[in-house]
């Protein structure tokens, strides 16, 4: 299963590291990553593969939420199919 993770927040040092290390700990593979500053906000979009993940989707979501609180950003994880359905015929 693949999912899209988006991170939005005030730019600072270490956001990518904080999130990617959490993903690595849980054996979640990052397939694609793009990062930009939009309207002054740090915006990161990741496509990840949960095939070999050590935790369930909902647990990973919780872990990410906790990490997001620690570093002061907003984080979202949604199944890739939602984006596929809405944006691709």
């Amino acid at each position, binding site marked *: 299963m693949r999912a899209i993770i988006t991170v939005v927040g005030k730019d600072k040092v270490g956001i990518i590291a904080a999130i990617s290390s959490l993903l690595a700990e849980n054996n979640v593979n990052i397939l*694609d990553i793009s990062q930009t500053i939009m309207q002054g906000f740090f915006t990161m979009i990741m496509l990840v593969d949960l095939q070999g993940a050590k935790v369930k989707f909902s647990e990973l979501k919780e872990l990410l939420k906790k990490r997001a609180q620690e570093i002061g950003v907003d984080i979202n994880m949604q199944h890739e*199919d*939602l984006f596929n359905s809405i*944006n691709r015929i």
Partner: protein
Amino acid sequence: MFTSQEIIETINMVKQNNLDIRTITVGISLFDCVSENPQVFIDRMKKKIVEYAGSLKEVANEIEDMFGLPIVNRRVALTPISLLTYGFECNDLIKVAIAIDDIAKEIGVDLIGGYSALVHKSYDEKTKRFISSIPEALAETERLCSSVDVGTTKSGINLDVIGHLGYVIKEIAYKTKDKDSFGCARFVVFANATDDNPFMAGAFHGVGEGDSAINVGISGPGVIKRAVEEKQDASIEEIYETIKRMAFKITRAGQLVLKYASERLNIPMGIVDLSLAPTPKVGDSIAEILEEIGVEKVGGYGTTFALAILNDAVKKGGAMAASFTGGLSGAFIPVSEDSGMVKGVEEGALSLEKLEAMTSVCSVGLDMIVVPGDTEPEVISGLIADEIAIGVYNNKTTAVRIIPAYGKKEGDEVNFGGLLGRAKVMKINKFSPHKLIHRGGRVPPPIISLRN
């Protein structure tokens, strides 16, 4: 990979603009539960509903989590109970109603529909007994929903039952008077009722349906409003196109949820209802879309025109996004459930007469309208008759969900809480159609019914 713009847009649809799936409704046929013995019927029914919809709540939560897309309601729709309990005594009917309500609570669904009767043609004594049991059934339950179909384009209109329903609605209002006559919010009168409607209070599992099906009702007025907002100087053509495109995207989300729910519950896919359903939340309102299209206040001239455009564009956009569409597909205009509509009433822009005109182009009809508690039953029947005529003669579904709030008068406020919202008691024309309603009888189907 998607472009960042696509991803941000999709996330904003949910986060900022309240895109949600309004309901997953599992339809269950109870024909195989029929028994002359009420207790046997109840036992079989319980077993079957739990077997089919027992994990609905859990599955809906899982889907919600996976897509980050809120699913507001989990519901069950049953075969019209009057067909299964034909000839039951009144107290047995109430037992059935309570049993259904208990099952809904047990499996954690928000509402359960199907305490319904289809009497568009004949109205015999046993069915009359069933309909007479509705006020008690609703007063004794919390989640049970009830509906009566009183006319179809193919078979005409049953004036006898319309006359009776004025009294039934008054009785429901009285029996639930300590809750602002809330029972009336769980009862709806239909013309051309559909078999696969996922929305309450009118959802039932139609006789043409199979053993079970999942139907999904989408929502998303906020998303459409936002899209229209961005087109300040656009022509009406462009507005139409914008709504159509957005409706497509919303419906795709609905189709996705339908597919997942169907796989996980192992129940066949039914339909996606191409709907725009409001909530009392600001920014989640059909009225606000109409105002964004360009009427100063919902109810002003131009409102019917704007609603017609909205409704048609939603259907066109959604039709390609889902494999099977059905239900009531279109825009819903309940008053109390839509903060913009409530404001329209409060500011004197929106009257009952204008609402009636709007129902000729919307997906349902006079919905969640609160009128004074002392409204005569015949006046309510007259209002139902008018609305049913609009449906039958124009070959569309229409409905009436009206609440004569006991003890309240014009201008008072009622508050149902939650999704059902609050509303001002509206002005109703009190000149009585007493003579007309008491003529009774049956109206033959209109000439358009002869199209074969």
